[in-house]
Protein backbone atom coordinates (compact mmCIF):
# COMPACT_ATOMS: atom_id res chain seq x y z
CA UNK A 1 0.00 0.00 0.00
CA UNK A 2 2.74 2.42 1.01
CA UNK A 3 4.62 1.58 -2.15
CA UNK A 4 1.58 2.16 -4.36
CA UNK A 5 0.99 5.58 -2.84
CA UNK A 6 4.60 6.64 -3.24
CA UNK A 7 4.50 5.48 -6.88
CA UNK A 8 1.41 7.58 -7.49
CA UNK A 9 2.98 10.64 -5.87
CA UNK A 10 6.14 10.21 -7.95
CA UNK A 11 4.02 9.88 -11.06
CA UNK A 12 2.01 13.02 -10.28
CA UNK A 13 5.24 14.90 -9.57
CA UNK A 14 6.73 13.77 -12.89
CA UNK A 15 3.57 14.87 -14.69
CA UNK A 16 4.14 18.42 -13.53
CA UNK A 17 7.76 18.39 -14.68
CA UNK A 18 6.99 18.85 -18.34
CA UNK A 19 10.61 19.39 -19.28
CA UNK A 20 11.32 15.76 -18.42
CA UNK A 21 8.88 14.64 -21.06
CA UNK A 22 9.40 17.42 -23.59
CA UNK A 23 10.75 15.79 -26.69
CA UNK A 24 9.98 17.54 -29.92
CA UNK A 25 10.36 14.37 -32.00
CA UNK A 26 7.90 12.61 -29.71
CA UNK A 27 5.51 15.57 -30.03
CA UNK A 28 5.79 15.59 -33.81
CA UNK A 29 4.96 11.89 -33.94
CA UNK A 30 2.01 12.20 -31.55
CA UNK A 31 0.62 15.10 -33.58
CA UNK A 32 1.00 13.48 -37.00
CA UNK A 33 -1.97 11.97 -38.86
CA UNK A 34 -4.49 14.23 -37.16
CA UNK A 35 -3.21 13.36 -33.64
CA UNK A 36 -4.62 9.82 -33.90
CA UNK A 37 -1.69 8.47 -31.83
CA UNK A 38 -3.00 10.43 -28.84
CA UNK A 39 -6.11 8.23 -28.99
CA UNK A 40 -3.90 5.13 -29.31
CA UNK A 41 -1.90 6.31 -26.28
CA UNK A 42 -5.10 6.74 -24.26
CA UNK A 43 -6.31 3.26 -25.22
CA UNK A 44 -2.93 1.72 -24.34
CA UNK A 45 -2.89 3.38 -20.92
CA UNK A 46 -6.38 2.06 -20.18
CA UNK A 47 -5.17 -1.40 -21.22
CA UNK A 48 -2.13 -1.07 -18.91
CA UNK A 49 -4.52 -0.11 -16.11
CA UNK A 50 -6.54 -3.29 -16.68
CA UNK A 51 -3.32 -5.34 -16.71
CA UNK A 52 -2.34 -3.74 -13.38
CA UNK A 53 -5.68 -4.87 -12.00
CA UNK A 54 -4.94 -8.42 -13.16
CA UNK A 55 -1.59 -8.28 -11.33
CA UNK A 56 -3.30 -7.17 -8.11
CA UNK A 57 -5.83 -9.99 -8.43
CA UNK A 58 -3.12 -12.56 -9.01
CA UNK A 59 -1.23 -11.42 -5.90
CA UNK A 60 -4.40 -11.78 -3.80
CA UNK A 61 -5.10 -15.20 -5.26
CA UNK A 62 -1.53 -16.28 -4.57
CA UNK A 63 -1.96 -15.31 -0.93
CA UNK A 64 -5.09 -17.44 -0.73
CA UNK A 65 -3.39 -20.39 -2.39
CA UNK A 66 -0.53 -20.15 0.07
CA UNK A 67 -2.93 -20.08 3.01
CA UNK A 68 -4.74 -23.12 1.68
CA UNK A 69 -1.47 -24.99 1.23
CA UNK A 70 -0.39 -24.22 4.78
CA UNK A 71 -3.66 -24.67 6.68
CA UNK A 72 -6.02 -26.47 4.34
Amino acid sequence: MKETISYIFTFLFLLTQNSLFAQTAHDAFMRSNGKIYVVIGVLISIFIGLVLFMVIMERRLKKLEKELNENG
Partner: protein
Amino acid sequence: MKHWWKILGVLLMIYSIVAGLAIPLKPGIYDAITASKAITGAPIDIVAVGYLTKFDNTKDDLRAWLKVDNEHAIASTAIKVESESRLKVSFDIPNNLPSADKTVDAALIIDSKKNGYSIFPSAVFIKNTVGTNSAAGWTNAISNMTQHQGMSFPYRNILQETIRNLFYHVPLWFGMMIIFLISAINSGRFLKTKNSKFDHKAASYASVGTLFGILGLVTGAIWAKHTWGAYWSWDIKQNMSAIAMLVYLAYFVLRNSFEESEQSARIGAVYNIFAFVTLPMLLFVIPRLTDSLHPGNGGNPGFGGEDLDNNMRMVFYPAIIGFTLFGAWMANILYRLKAVQQRLLDKAFHSA
Protein backbone atom coordinates in the same frame (compact mmCIF):
# COMPACT_ATOMS: atom_id res chain seq x y z
CA MET B 1 -28.32 -16.11 -17.84
CA LYS B 2 -26.86 -14.49 -14.78
CA HIS B 3 -23.75 -13.29 -16.63
CA TRP B 4 -25.71 -11.19 -19.14
CA TRP B 5 -24.51 -7.86 -17.72
CA LYS B 6 -20.85 -8.84 -18.05
CA ILE B 7 -21.37 -9.86 -21.67
CA LEU B 8 -23.29 -6.64 -22.29
CA GLY B 9 -20.48 -4.58 -20.74
CA VAL B 10 -17.81 -6.25 -22.88
CA LEU B 11 -19.91 -5.95 -26.05
CA LEU B 12 -20.55 -2.27 -25.41
CA MET B 13 -16.83 -1.67 -24.79
CA ILE B 14 -15.91 -3.47 -28.02
CA TYR B 15 -18.61 -1.47 -29.83
CA SER B 16 -17.29 1.82 -28.45
CA ILE B 17 -13.70 0.99 -29.47
CA VAL B 18 -14.63 -0.22 -32.97
CA ALA B 19 -17.23 2.44 -33.80
CA GLY B 20 -15.23 5.13 -31.99
CA LEU B 21 -12.16 4.45 -34.14
CA ALA B 22 -13.77 3.43 -37.43
CA ILE B 23 -16.14 6.32 -38.10
CA PRO B 24 -14.20 9.04 -39.97
CA LEU B 25 -14.03 12.73 -39.11
CA LYS B 26 -15.68 15.31 -41.32
CA PRO B 27 -13.23 16.89 -43.78
CA GLY B 28 -11.89 20.12 -42.33
CA ILE B 29 -9.40 22.96 -42.83
CA TYR B 30 -6.24 22.08 -40.95
CA ASP B 31 -4.06 25.13 -41.65
CA ALA B 32 -4.11 28.43 -43.54
CA ILE B 33 -0.80 29.69 -44.96
CA THR B 34 -0.28 33.23 -46.17
CA ALA B 35 2.84 34.38 -48.01
CA SER B 36 2.31 38.08 -47.29
CA LYS B 37 0.69 40.13 -44.51
CA ALA B 38 -2.97 40.94 -44.93
CA ILE B 39 -3.59 44.69 -45.20
CA THR B 40 -6.60 46.74 -46.26
CA GLY B 41 -6.93 47.64 -49.93
CA ALA B 42 -4.66 44.85 -51.14
CA PRO B 43 -5.19 41.35 -52.50
CA ILE B 44 -4.13 38.34 -50.51
CA ASP B 45 -3.61 34.67 -51.32
CA ILE B 46 -4.33 32.08 -48.67
CA VAL B 47 -3.34 28.44 -49.07
CA ALA B 48 -5.88 26.34 -47.18
CA VAL B 49 -4.59 22.93 -46.12
CA GLY B 50 -7.38 20.41 -45.76
CA TYR B 51 -7.59 17.36 -43.51
CA LEU B 52 -9.33 14.38 -45.16
CA THR B 53 -10.61 16.69 -47.90
CA LYS B 54 -10.99 15.63 -51.51
CA PHE B 55 -10.86 18.92 -53.38
CA ASP B 56 -11.51 18.47 -57.09
CA ASN B 57 -11.22 21.06 -59.81
CA THR B 58 -13.90 19.94 -62.18
CA LYS B 59 -16.65 18.30 -60.21
CA ASP B 60 -16.90 20.63 -57.26
CA ASP B 61 -18.67 23.86 -56.58
CA LEU B 62 -16.17 25.58 -54.29
CA ARG B 63 -16.88 28.85 -52.51
CA ALA B 64 -14.83 30.71 -49.89
CA TRP B 65 -15.22 33.67 -47.57
CA LEU B 66 -13.17 35.63 -45.06
CA LYS B 67 -15.44 36.38 -42.13
CA VAL B 68 -14.69 39.10 -39.58
CA ASP B 69 -17.96 38.86 -37.65
CA ASN B 70 -21.52 37.76 -38.25
CA GLU B 71 -22.39 40.78 -40.40
CA HIS B 72 -19.11 41.33 -42.21
CA ALA B 73 -17.44 39.02 -44.69
CA ILE B 74 -15.94 39.06 -48.17
CA ALA B 75 -16.24 36.42 -50.86
CA SER B 76 -13.19 35.09 -52.64
CA THR B 77 -12.20 36.37 -56.09
CA ALA B 78 -10.58 33.12 -57.21
CA ILE B 79 -10.14 29.56 -55.94
CA LYS B 80 -7.47 27.31 -57.40
CA VAL B 81 -7.24 23.64 -56.50
CA GLU B 82 -3.57 22.74 -56.02
CA SER B 83 -4.17 19.20 -54.82
CA GLU B 84 -6.78 17.11 -53.02
CA SER B 85 -5.84 18.77 -49.77
CA ARG B 86 -4.60 22.21 -50.90
CA LEU B 87 -6.64 25.15 -52.09
CA LYS B 88 -5.28 28.55 -53.08
CA VAL B 89 -7.92 31.14 -52.28
CA SER B 90 -7.57 34.79 -53.36
CA PHE B 91 -9.31 37.73 -51.74
CA ASP B 92 -9.43 41.47 -52.43
CA ILE B 93 -9.55 43.08 -49.01
CA PRO B 94 -11.66 46.30 -49.07
CA ASN B 95 -10.11 49.69 -48.26
CA ASN B 96 -11.80 49.84 -44.88
CA LEU B 97 -12.26 47.59 -41.91
CA PRO B 98 -15.77 47.22 -40.47
CA SER B 99 -14.50 47.90 -36.94
CA ALA B 100 -12.43 50.65 -35.35
CA ASP B 101 -9.69 48.18 -34.34
CA LYS B 102 -6.23 48.50 -35.90
CA THR B 103 -6.20 44.78 -36.65
CA VAL B 104 -9.02 42.29 -36.96
CA ASP B 105 -8.78 38.54 -37.26
CA ALA B 106 -10.79 36.83 -39.95
CA ALA B 107 -11.96 33.24 -40.20
CA LEU B 108 -11.61 31.37 -43.46
CA ILE B 109 -14.79 29.58 -44.49
CA ILE B 110 -14.75 27.10 -47.34
CA ASP B 111 -17.88 25.53 -48.72
CA SER B 112 -17.55 22.51 -50.94
CA LYS B 113 -20.35 20.43 -52.42
CA LYS B 114 -18.20 17.32 -51.99
CA ASN B 115 -16.64 17.91 -48.56
CA GLY B 116 -19.22 20.05 -46.80
CA TYR B 117 -18.34 23.39 -45.22
CA SER B 118 -15.43 24.03 -42.92
CA ILE B 119 -14.25 26.97 -40.80
CA PHE B 120 -10.68 27.83 -39.85
CA PRO B 121 -10.72 30.51 -37.13
CA SER B 122 -8.20 33.38 -37.15
CA ALA B 123 -6.84 32.40 -40.58
CA VAL B 124 -5.49 35.92 -41.20
CA PHE B 125 -5.03 39.11 -39.21
CA ILE B 126 -6.00 42.08 -41.36
CA LYS B 127 -4.17 45.32 -40.57
CA ASN B 128 -5.90 48.63 -41.23
CA THR B 129 -3.39 50.80 -43.15
CA VAL B 130 -5.87 53.47 -44.26
CA GLY B 131 -7.15 54.26 -40.82
CA THR B 132 -10.85 54.70 -41.41
CA ASN B 133 -13.55 52.24 -40.59
CA SER B 134 -16.67 51.61 -42.58
CA ALA B 135 -18.60 48.61 -43.71
CA ALA B 136 -18.24 49.46 -47.40
CA GLY B 137 -17.16 46.47 -49.42
CA TRP B 138 -18.14 43.98 -46.69
CA THR B 139 -21.23 41.83 -47.03
CA ASN B 140 -23.11 39.33 -44.92
CA ALA B 141 -23.97 37.10 -47.84
CA ILE B 142 -22.78 33.73 -46.55
CA SER B 143 -25.55 31.28 -47.33
CA ASN B 144 -26.46 27.79 -48.47
CA MET B 145 -23.71 26.03 -46.59
CA THR B 146 -23.33 22.39 -47.58
CA GLN B 147 -23.57 19.74 -44.86
CA HIS B 148 -21.17 16.82 -45.13
CA GLN B 149 -22.95 13.66 -46.22
CA GLY B 150 -22.45 10.32 -44.53
CA MET B 151 -21.62 9.06 -41.03
CA SER B 152 -18.90 11.17 -39.45
CA PHE B 153 -17.68 12.86 -36.27
CA PRO B 154 -17.16 16.64 -36.05
CA TYR B 155 -13.81 18.09 -37.10
CA ARG B 156 -12.43 20.52 -34.49
CA ASN B 157 -9.22 22.35 -35.19
CA ILE B 158 -7.15 21.64 -32.08
CA LEU B 159 -8.81 18.35 -31.18
CA GLN B 160 -8.73 16.70 -34.61
CA GLU B 161 -8.81 12.89 -34.18
CA THR B 162 -8.46 13.22 -30.40
CA ILE B 163 -12.17 14.10 -30.28
CA ARG B 164 -12.50 10.28 -30.13
CA ASN B 165 -11.04 10.37 -26.62
CA LEU B 166 -14.50 11.44 -25.53
CA PHE B 167 -15.41 7.72 -25.78
CA TYR B 168 -12.49 6.55 -23.60
CA HIS B 169 -11.50 9.35 -21.21
CA VAL B 170 -14.92 10.69 -20.20
CA PRO B 171 -16.65 7.29 -19.61
CA LEU B 172 -13.86 6.46 -17.13
CA TRP B 173 -15.02 9.40 -15.00
CA PHE B 174 -18.74 8.70 -15.47
CA GLY B 175 -18.10 5.04 -14.63
CA MET B 176 -16.01 6.07 -11.62
CA MET B 177 -18.90 8.17 -10.24
CA ILE B 178 -21.39 5.29 -10.57
CA ILE B 179 -18.94 2.77 -9.06
CA PHE B 180 -18.16 5.08 -6.12
CA LEU B 181 -21.91 5.50 -5.63
CA ILE B 182 -22.34 1.71 -5.40
CA SER B 183 -19.42 1.66 -2.95
CA ALA B 184 -21.02 4.34 -0.74
CA ILE B 185 -24.38 2.50 -0.80
CA ASN B 186 -22.64 -0.69 0.36
CA SER B 187 -20.94 1.24 3.16
CA GLY B 188 -24.37 2.49 4.23
CA ARG B 189 -25.74 -1.06 4.20
CA PHE B 190 -22.77 -2.20 6.30
CA LEU B 191 -23.44 0.48 8.93
CA LYS B 192 -27.08 -0.63 9.04
CA THR B 193 -26.60 -4.40 9.11
CA LYS B 194 -23.04 -4.75 10.54
CA ASN B 195 -22.53 -7.52 8.00
CA SER B 196 -18.85 -7.44 6.96
CA LYS B 197 -19.88 -8.69 3.50
CA PHE B 198 -21.06 -5.18 2.64
CA ASP B 199 -17.82 -3.66 3.87
CA HIS B 200 -15.82 -5.93 1.56
CA LYS B 201 -18.12 -4.98 -1.30
CA ALA B 202 -17.67 -1.28 -0.57
CA ALA B 203 -13.87 -1.63 -0.50
CA SER B 204 -13.84 -3.60 -3.77
CA TYR B 205 -15.95 -1.03 -5.60
CA ALA B 206 -13.83 1.78 -4.15
CA SER B 207 -10.66 0.05 -5.47
CA VAL B 208 -12.03 -0.17 -8.99
CA GLY B 209 -13.36 3.40 -8.79
CA THR B 210 -9.91 4.63 -7.75
CA LEU B 211 -8.31 2.69 -10.61
CA PHE B 212 -10.77 4.32 -13.04
CA GLY B 213 -10.02 7.74 -11.55
CA ILE B 214 -6.24 7.30 -11.84
CA LEU B 215 -6.69 6.07 -15.43
CA GLY B 216 -8.87 9.12 -16.02
CA LEU B 217 -6.04 11.34 -14.77
CA VAL B 218 -3.45 9.57 -16.94
CA THR B 219 -5.56 9.53 -20.11
CA GLY B 220 -6.52 13.16 -19.47
CA ALA B 221 -2.86 14.11 -19.09
CA ILE B 222 -1.94 12.44 -22.40
CA TRP B 223 -4.85 14.17 -24.13
CA ALA B 224 -3.94 17.51 -22.53
CA LYS B 225 -0.29 17.30 -23.62
CA HIS B 226 -1.22 17.38 -27.29
CA THR B 227 -4.16 19.78 -27.13
CA TRP B 228 -3.53 22.14 -24.20
CA GLY B 229 0.27 21.88 -24.46
CA ALA B 230 1.23 20.26 -21.14
CA TYR B 231 0.54 17.02 -19.29
CA TRP B 232 -0.52 18.98 -16.25
CA SER B 233 -1.66 22.59 -16.67
CA TRP B 234 -2.81 23.02 -13.06
CA ASP B 235 -6.28 23.30 -14.50
CA ILE B 236 -8.83 23.51 -11.69
CA LYS B 237 -10.64 20.33 -12.76
CA GLN B 238 -7.36 18.42 -13.05
CA ASN B 239 -6.35 19.55 -9.56
CA MET B 240 -9.72 18.77 -8.03
CA SER B 241 -9.86 15.28 -9.55
CA ALA B 242 -6.33 14.61 -8.26
CA ILE B 243 -7.53 15.69 -4.79
CA ALA B 244 -10.57 13.41 -5.14
CA MET B 245 -8.18 10.52 -5.82
CA LEU B 246 -6.15 11.43 -2.72
CA VAL B 247 -9.39 11.44 -0.69
CA TYR B 248 -10.04 7.87 -1.81
CA LEU B 249 -6.44 6.78 -1.26
CA ALA B 250 -6.86 8.02 2.31
CA TYR B 251 -9.85 5.65 2.60
CA PHE B 252 -7.60 2.66 1.95
CA VAL B 253 -4.95 3.94 4.34
CA LEU B 254 -7.62 4.43 7.01
CA ARG B 255 -9.13 0.99 6.46
CA ASN B 256 -5.74 -0.68 6.81
CA SER B 257 -4.58 1.27 9.85
CA PHE B 258 -6.65 -0.44 12.55
CA GLU B 259 -5.75 -3.69 14.23
CA GLU B 260 -9.33 -4.66 14.87
CA SER B 261 -11.21 -5.44 11.66
CA GLU B 262 -14.64 -4.54 13.09
CA GLN B 263 -13.43 -1.05 13.99
CA SER B 264 -11.63 -0.47 10.71
CA ALA B 265 -14.72 -1.51 8.77
CA ARG B 266 -16.97 0.86 10.73
CA ILE B 267 -14.68 3.90 10.46
CA GLY B 268 -13.92 3.08 6.83
CA ALA B 269 -17.62 2.92 5.99
CA VAL B 270 -18.33 6.31 7.57
CA TYR B 271 -15.32 7.84 5.79
CA ASN B 272 -16.35 6.30 2.46
CA ILE B 273 -19.77 7.94 2.63
CA PHE B 274 -18.17 11.31 3.38
CA ALA B 275 -15.67 10.80 0.54
CA PHE B 276 -18.52 10.23 -1.89
CA VAL B 277 -20.30 13.36 -0.69
CA THR B 278 -17.18 15.47 -1.48
CA LEU B 279 -17.00 14.13 -5.06
CA PRO B 280 -19.71 16.29 -6.69
CA MET B 281 -18.22 19.30 -4.92
CA LEU B 282 -14.69 18.60 -6.18
CA LEU B 283 -15.61 17.50 -9.69
CA PHE B 284 -18.68 19.54 -10.59
CA VAL B 285 -19.09 22.57 -8.32
CA ILE B 286 -15.62 24.03 -7.75
CA PRO B 287 -14.42 23.73 -11.40
CA ARG B 288 -17.45 25.77 -12.48
CA LEU B 289 -16.53 28.66 -10.21
CA THR B 290 -13.21 29.61 -11.81
CA ASP B 291 -11.55 29.47 -15.20
CA SER B 292 -10.97 26.01 -16.55
CA LEU B 293 -9.79 24.48 -19.79
CA HIS B 294 -12.37 21.72 -19.51
CA PRO B 295 -15.55 22.19 -21.53
CA GLY B 296 -18.59 23.10 -19.46
CA ASN B 297 -16.54 24.79 -16.74
CA GLY B 298 -15.60 28.35 -15.87
CA GLY B 299 -17.54 30.08 -18.64
CA ASN B 300 -16.58 27.55 -21.30
CA PRO B 301 -19.48 26.13 -23.23
CA GLY B 302 -20.34 22.55 -22.31
CA PHE B 303 -19.70 19.60 -24.55
CA GLY B 304 -22.50 19.87 -27.06
CA GLY B 305 -23.40 21.44 -30.38
CA GLU B 306 -20.33 21.26 -32.58
CA ASP B 307 -18.36 19.15 -30.09
CA LEU B 308 -20.89 16.40 -29.45
CA ASP B 309 -23.25 15.61 -32.30
CA ASN B 310 -25.76 12.79 -32.47
CA ASN B 311 -23.28 10.44 -34.14
CA MET B 312 -20.94 10.86 -31.18
CA ARG B 313 -23.77 10.35 -28.68
CA MET B 314 -24.47 6.98 -30.30
CA VAL B 315 -20.99 5.85 -29.23
CA PHE B 316 -20.56 7.96 -26.09
CA TYR B 317 -23.58 6.74 -24.08
CA PRO B 318 -22.98 3.02 -24.80
CA ALA B 319 -19.32 3.58 -23.84
CA ILE B 320 -20.41 4.91 -20.42
CA ILE B 321 -22.64 1.89 -19.81
CA GLY B 322 -19.93 -0.48 -21.08
CA PHE B 323 -17.15 0.95 -18.89
CA THR B 324 -19.45 0.97 -15.84
CA LEU B 325 -20.55 -2.64 -16.29
CA PHE B 326 -16.96 -3.74 -16.90
CA GLY B 327 -15.86 -1.92 -13.74
CA ALA B 328 -18.67 -3.58 -11.79
CA TRP B 329 -17.44 -6.97 -13.06
CA MET B 330 -13.90 -6.17 -11.91
CA ALA B 331 -15.20 -5.12 -8.48
CA ASN B 332 -17.34 -8.24 -8.31
CA ILE B 333 -14.32 -10.54 -8.83
CA LEU B 334 -12.27 -8.58 -6.29
CA TYR B 335 -15.10 -8.85 -3.76
CA ARG B 336 -15.42 -12.62 -4.23
CA LEU B 337 -11.69 -13.03 -3.65
CA LYS B 338 -11.98 -11.02 -0.45
CA ALA B 339 -15.00 -13.04 0.65
CA VAL B 340 -13.12 -16.33 0.15
CA GLN B 341 -10.17 -14.92 2.10
CA GLN B 342 -12.54 -13.91 4.93
CA ARG B 343 -14.06 -17.41 5.02
CA LEU B 344 -10.61 -18.98 5.23
CA LEU B 345 -9.69 -16.60 8.08
CA ASP B 346 -12.90 -17.42 9.95
CA LYS B 347 -12.29 -21.14 9.51
CA ALA B 348 -8.75 -20.85 10.83
CA PHE B 349 -10.05 -18.77 13.75
CA HIS B 350 -12.72 -21.31 14.72
CA SER B 351 -10.47 -24.34 14.44
CA ALA B 352 -7.72 -22.71 16.50
